């Protein structure tokens, strides 16, 4: 009978081959996965606008004065502290008082023994400034309190929108937001907001809306010395896509339900310009003039790199670029002369919160002449 002979080398070779095959498969499973993350948290997006200034100095210089740039600042900024410190507000929720304690802005109320430290100020000041306090819970997640008192244009203090519905009892200093809501709040007011499994890192955050926020891929653009384009080709976007990009923070029309987007609710919608604009006939029917190059979206009237213009003549001129019967067959105003102020009638200011006025971007006939706009046009259709 033949006795088996063990071939060591063959065994070793075969064992190594099998081990290698298994190792390759297992290693392949563990390779680093670069999942697409929100632009806000993308590491490649952490870019200071000074890098952009090397080639786009004029734009960056203008942008320093733009409201977007200062839409989120730490509460230690002296000029912000000066707007709040040592000021009081009497409201239905009680009396609130700001004070500065060793360069730390704090809010207190007579109904509570302790004060709360203000960590961040949200808002550019074009309309309002809202103080926010943050802390870390035991799970390491950031929670926040949107404080009850805000500063409004005209140097007034008033209740923060939403606080008027807060319960008087128990006494509180603000509306508490859980970690997800906190991340949402900071997300619209920052250019870069890193997060690790839901834990945002405010220490690494780039506060304020700057270049990379609207131009994703800017860091690759800089790294390639301009060879690589940014991810968003703004001119190539359709008007609706363009408005909805702004609506990512200013609210998108397709994220609202049909009963929220009605003429009856138009005053409440005034706060969300990007929602109102896409309801306007000027917007929905602009394809009539597409061949002439006319276009209506947010940047038709607003340069996001600069402060918003306040002179009506500028906007009226934009309106008459299309509404000029000598050039285009679009109905001109049959109530007022063509050179009158369009905005005051067709885009009046509306207020749903005390001290806060927004231009109603739902361009339509003034109330006295509105007879056939009672139904909701609903979310805009892609063009």
């Amino acid at each position, binding site marked *: 009978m033949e*006795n088996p002979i063990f071939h060591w080398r063959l065994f070793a070779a075969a064992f190594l081959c099998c081990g290698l095959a298994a190792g390759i498969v297992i290693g392949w499973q563990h390779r680093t996965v670069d999942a697409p993350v929100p632009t806000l948290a993308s590491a490649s997006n952490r870019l200071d606008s000074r890098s952009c200034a090397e080639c786009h100095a004029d734009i960056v210089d203008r942008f320093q004065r733009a409201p977007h740039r200062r839409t989120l600042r730490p509460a230690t900024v002296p000029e912000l502290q000066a707007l709040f410190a040592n000021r009081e507000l009497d409201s239905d929720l009680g009396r609130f008082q700001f004070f500065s304690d060793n360069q730390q802005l704090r809010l207190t109320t007579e109904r509570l023994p302790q004060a709360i430290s203000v960590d961040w100020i949200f808002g550019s000041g074009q309309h309002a400034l809202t103080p926010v306090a943050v802390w870390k819970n035991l799970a390491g997640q950031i929670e926040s309190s949107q404080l009850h008192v805000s500063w409004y244009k005209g140097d007034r203090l008033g209740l923060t929108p939403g606080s008027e519905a807060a319960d008087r009892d128990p006494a509180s200093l603000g509306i508490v937001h859980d970690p997800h809501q906190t991340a949402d709040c900071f997300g619209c007011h920052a250019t870069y907001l890193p997060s690790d499994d839901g834990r945002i890192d405010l220490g690494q955050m780039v506060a304020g809306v700057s270049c990379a926020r609207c131009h*994703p891929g800017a860091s690759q653009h800089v790294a390639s010395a301009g060879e690589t384009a940014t991810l968003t080709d703004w001119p190539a976007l359709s008007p609706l896509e363009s408005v909805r990009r702004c609506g990512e923070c200013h609210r998108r029309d397709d994220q609202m339900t049909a009963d929220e987007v009605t003429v009856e609710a138009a005053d409440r919608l005034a706060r969300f310009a990007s929602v109102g604009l896409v309801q306007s006939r000027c917007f929905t029917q602009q394809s009539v003039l597409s061949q002439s190059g006319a276009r209506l979206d947010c940047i038709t009237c607003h340069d996001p790199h600069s402060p918003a213009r306040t002179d009506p003549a500028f906007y009226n001129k934009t309106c008459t670029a299309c509404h000029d019967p000598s050039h285009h067959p679009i109905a001109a105003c049959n109530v007022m002369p063509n050179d009158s102020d369009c905005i005051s009638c067709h885009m009046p200011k509306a207020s749903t919160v005390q001290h806060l006025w927004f231009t109603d971007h739902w361009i339509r006939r003034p109330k006295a002449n509105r007879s056939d706009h009672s139904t909701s046009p609903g979310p805009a259709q892609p063009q």
Partner: protein
Amino acid sequence: MAKRFHSRSHRHRPRTPSASVGFAANQGSAGERATVVKPILPLAWYGCCAALIAFQPVATDDLWWQLSRGRELLKGNWHPSRMLLVDETLADADWLGGVPILATFHLLGLAGLATVRPLVVAALAWFSWRMILGRHWWRAVTAGLVLICASPALEPSALGLDFGFFLLLGWGAHSHRPNRWQRRLICPIILLLWANFAPRVVLGLLSLAAWNLARRQPQRTPAITIGWGLLLAVAASSLTPRGWWTLADSLRITFPLAFPQGWWLNEGPWASGITGFPPWQALSFVALTLAILFQIACQKMRNAAIPILVGVQVAAWHNVGMMSLAAVPLLFLLGRSYAVSGANQPGDAAEQGEPVTGHARHLTRESHLHVFGLALLVVLFLISLFAFARQGLGYGLVEALDIRFLERTLAGKSLEQTAWADSVRTAGMLAWDGRGLQVHDIPHRALLGGRLMDYHLLRDDLRHGRRGYHQRSDNRQGGWWLPLLGRQTEMLLVDTNDTALIAGLRQTLWRPLAIDGPILALGRAGSSELNDSILLAIRFQDYVEFGDWQYRPPQSSGSVFDRDRFGLRPEWDDTNLAIRQAELLRAMGLPRAALRVLRHLQRTGRERQADLPSKRCHADLFDWEVRMAGQASVFRRVVNQTLAGRTDPAATPSFQKAATAYAQGQVAAALETLQQDGDRALETRYAVASLRLEFGGSEAAIMELTQLAEEAPEQPVGRLATELIGRLDIPTVH
């Protein structure tokens, strides 16, 4: 075939009386006893192993999905996935896959489905026994390892069908039929059936090609003949509603890592990694591999088996399912090796009794190696078996497949829109339950349709509360609002083990319709059909959080969904189930209810398992107090310090003692400690009221909290008392 293997083995079986491993060649009565004992022990051992593997409950995730597909087919829909899924546009290649499972269900019910596993194990045990002839320990051990390795595939599922067809194909490829046409057509026919019933037909095709190229032929088969045979096999595999795309789909399902989208498989049913394999399965597979390597090194197997073995490694380490299927080629390799080499197995040489001189001395050394190899194999086998056996025995369906919770939740509802499900298990349950709701997608179909990334990104957005539209770094759109509301989604179905997802949905318009069960249904707030259920669930939540509810383990119903067969155990106190319930309650924002569940574990000697979940619940309660009052109560602070292993220097001894008892789950002892001194300080009264709430004395707690709120409305404990009173509209639940 089996007879031929058997007869060869008989011819080569050694005639010495003690050929079993480890025994010296003995004579006389001991040798006679060994002769009698020799075949029985391995057989008995193998039988026990088979029984252990057979009596496990059905745990396959796609059971209800396959039943639903079968039902759609019987309704006349030839593309069942298209009917069941909103996002599906492709035809099903394995369109008949649900039919055998549905047929079993209709004929025998769920109990019949539960019987499939023991029957399949019995059949496989018989097949592998006949093939490997396990009367030797070595063979019995390897046969047992095959069973362990294949265990996940021995169920009524798509993987089970793949396994069955794989075995059938192996048998067909090995069978020697006199009729030439039978020989040529048997494999294509099997492949045709496989392609229409199960998804991994490409595995059979590749195995057939490799086998034909590697095996020895009595007359060398011309390459062109092999080529025509393979072409016929490919054509047969493509005779499905998907046509030529069948093999592409099969390749994508079988080897998902090979495709660009494969990296998204770190989540989902294909997620493995080295830790994703059950230890018993990985060990048994490694042991089988070693056994074959030994065979090769002993020249009991052709070297051509090496590339096959390497290919098996590449396939097997993809995921659990593939490792189960890898047991089939290993079984055939071993069987062929044993058939060819007869009784000269590792270990047999030890009993030859040859004189130890020269070459024989070298042979003795090799024989010792063979004994060592067998010993190693036996050790690995025993470890695998032990690890497997720790799951316990059972019969029926696992609790995770219990559809009764969902049926109860949706009873009487008429739903018309769509639902999103986070896995094939949850989707399958809803699809089976019907009610007119169409599910968005499932991972398998999303993989085939190139939608898997979007599927996982949406779940990621839900988990992290990213509601609004936002841009991702690759210019894709994110946010869950548009994908869900755009499809008129009325319900979400989530595995209750995914507590991160459930917690992420807490502040959204998706409200739970129940608070227990293996899957959680969440309805859209404002849905006219679901509002009643949502409100009822809210009442239940308040009741378990603040009412006099105490956790009790589920009672056995003796149904097919209980691991306790036939109602033998009245109470089913499963630790994992309790932990899952506690984590679910915590994810729903009910830490007090979760602590009630965990205290049951602490009272019944399972403190270690309850430790970490308890700490998380206490942290939640601490955070809640900070959120509401700006600072936590003293008692809560001391509890957290105690759990962190520290003492609070400002705490009184009674507080410290009470906190220690409370942290250990002894609420009554903590209450007694706080009350014995008659201390009426605000913090003490608040602590007592909080403990009474958790202990079930809600009326006394309400009285105390009301007094606190009136006496000190602006103190932290007063504010906390006010908050709690506001939430304490406790319903009575019958």
